[in-house]
């Protein structure tokens, strides 16, 4: 297992300035700008729609700039108490699930990082095997229902508590810490728990931050467990709230003109709900993005 450790990119490589190369550079820049535009366009479009008037959306006039600017739909969505209940649920589920996941992942990753530990290979194998073979939807559903976890937060939190990819990221990080530090601490009479809490974790702030973000974003975004195991709408997270709005629009077995209108009205509310759902992530994204990237690099295990 070797970690792909990227060198700080050395720029002046292959300095060559033939005509063909300059043409390539220009084409490349245009292609990449195209990628950026294509990526951003749908997002800007949704924001524009969320601020637009119903008539302008329905007549297909809204693309990048809001037409008939108004906040009516925002008021309407935000005055729906169910929306706020579900939004609060998302926050609670994310906090609880992230905390539990962090504890379990950190403990196991720390154990797996100890090279001298007997049975380490087997312990790692137990985790790795689940990447390639899993019980499948139905046995999981039967199990969670059988354990009586339905309609509780635990149905969302427990079945997804450890993400094996995150586990491997943390394990590689712990392995990269100098062993001497922990040995010295052990000589000073600290036991394993104390070493983990007082020596290892303070040195691992970077990876802990990354893992917190990975878990928090994935729980914030998750919807399927909630959709599967929660029956009462006051328990839903906001993703399921949004899902039900969209399902009302895509479940188009009846494509009559009447439902077409309903679909259009729903469109505006959908846009607003989408914007409000992704808002927290979009707000922090520019600041946390590099943590994610470093996390993925850390976890890039090969061989």
């Amino acid at each position, binding site marked *: 297992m070797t970690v*792909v450790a*990227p060198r700080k*990119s050395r720029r002046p490589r*292959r300095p*060559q300035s033939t005509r063909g190369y300059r043409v390539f*550079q220009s084409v*490349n*820049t245009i292609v*990449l700008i195209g*990628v*950026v535009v294509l*990526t*951003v366009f*749908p*997002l800007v*479009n*949704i924001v524009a729609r969320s601020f637009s008037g119903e008539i302008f959306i329905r*007549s*297909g006039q809204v*693309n990048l700039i809001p037409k008939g600017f108004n906040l009516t739909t925002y008021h309407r969505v935000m005055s729906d108490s169910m929306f706020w209940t579900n939004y609060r649920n998302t926050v609670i589920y994310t906090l609880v699930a992230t905390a539990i996941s*962090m*504890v*379990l992942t950190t*403990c*196991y990753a720390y*154990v797996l990082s100890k090279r001298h*530990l*007997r*049975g380490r290979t*087997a*312990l790692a194998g137990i985790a790795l095997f*689940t990447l390639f*073979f*899993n*019980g*499948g*939807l*139905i*046995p999981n559903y*039967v199990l969670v*229902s059988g354990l009586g976890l339905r309609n509780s937060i635990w149905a969302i939190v427990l079945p997804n508590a450890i993400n094996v990819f995150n586990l491997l990221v943390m394990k590689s990080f712990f392995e990269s810490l100098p062993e001497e530090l922990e040995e010295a601490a052990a000589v000073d009479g600290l036991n*394993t728990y104390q070493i983990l*809490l007082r020596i290892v974790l303070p040195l691992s702030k970077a990876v802990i931050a990354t893992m917190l973000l990975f878990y928090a974003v994935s729980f*914030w*975004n*998750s*919807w399927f467990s909630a959709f599967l195991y929660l029956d009462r709408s006051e328990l839903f997270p906001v*993703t399921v709230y949004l899902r039900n709005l*969209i399902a009302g629009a*895509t479940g188009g077995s009846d*494509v009559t003109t009447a439902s077409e209108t309903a679909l*259009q009205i729903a*469109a505006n509310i*959908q846009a607003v709900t989408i914007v409000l*759902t992704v808002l927290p992530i979009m707000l922090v*994204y520019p600041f946390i*993005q590099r943590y994610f990237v470093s996390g993925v*690099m850390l976890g*890039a295990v090969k*061989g």
Partner: protein
Amino acid sequence: MTTVKESVPASRKALSDSVEPPSRRGRRRSWRMSLRRDWQLYSLAILPLLFFAIFRYLPMLGNVIAFRRYQPGGDIFGETWVGLRYFRLFWADSTFWHVFTNTLILGTLTLLFLFPMPIVLALLLNEVRNRLFKRFVQTVSYLPHFLSIVVVVGIIVQTVSMDGVVNQALKAIGQDPIPFIQQPGWFRTLYISSEMWQTVGWGTILYLAALTTIDDDLYEAARIDGASRWRQTWHVTLPGIRPTMMTLLILNIGTFLAVGFEKILLLYNPLTYPTADVISTYLYRVGVVSGSFSYAAAIGLFESVIGLILVLSANAISRRTVGAGLW
């Protein structure tokens, strides 16, 4: 970090069942010694192992209901043994073969279109001289990765709706608008292109990391040998990222049959079932919605086993041909 404190299990007994029992008698003594020395470490593994046992391995055993009659609310391992009855049932089920074909088609398209794209984008990004521009393109293209699948489907629905931007463009060039969401013929295009939108940027990260590890001396040597940039890319860059490519290819092949279940579930509707319905969505409807748990479990087990065979053989082939595998 206060959360970590509560995790330290108080249980003092060394878990002999948490680790593989010694296979030979001679080893037993050293096992006891390492348990005595490292029991605190082993104790940290108790809760995670409980998690894996209950929520990962128990469901694997739970697949036994594929061979047994299961009653909702009853024993999670089923009531009476029925052998291969459910396997024979789905083998004779024409809908199953229909969704199986759909799965193969979508899986193949995913592999064909979504596997190479990050490599291409990473190579293009790698040629960018202006660091600020490179950083900007990366930041923007990673962004869709962080959106919930529900949000992504919401965006798709809005973008291709009758009043959405795609149909606006069609109208602008004098075409009739198309109800994309309701047409089976458009489902695969929608699925693949939106998947591309969401995953390609993020997929470049590992390749970009691998690209920075290629030794500059190799390029130097190639240049002295008179290799054009094109040949340098072909003979130095691509071999340099081959291990990463193989790893990701094997992982992709392993999830071949599990094509975007959540996304399809959100995006499809009865009108688009002819092309959109895949094994996982079918077994969801049969099992969870209609309550034929054993029948659905049989289909799911079939799917999992094929997935496992696929990943094992991909790994074996990769080891034999390029000498690099996952393990």
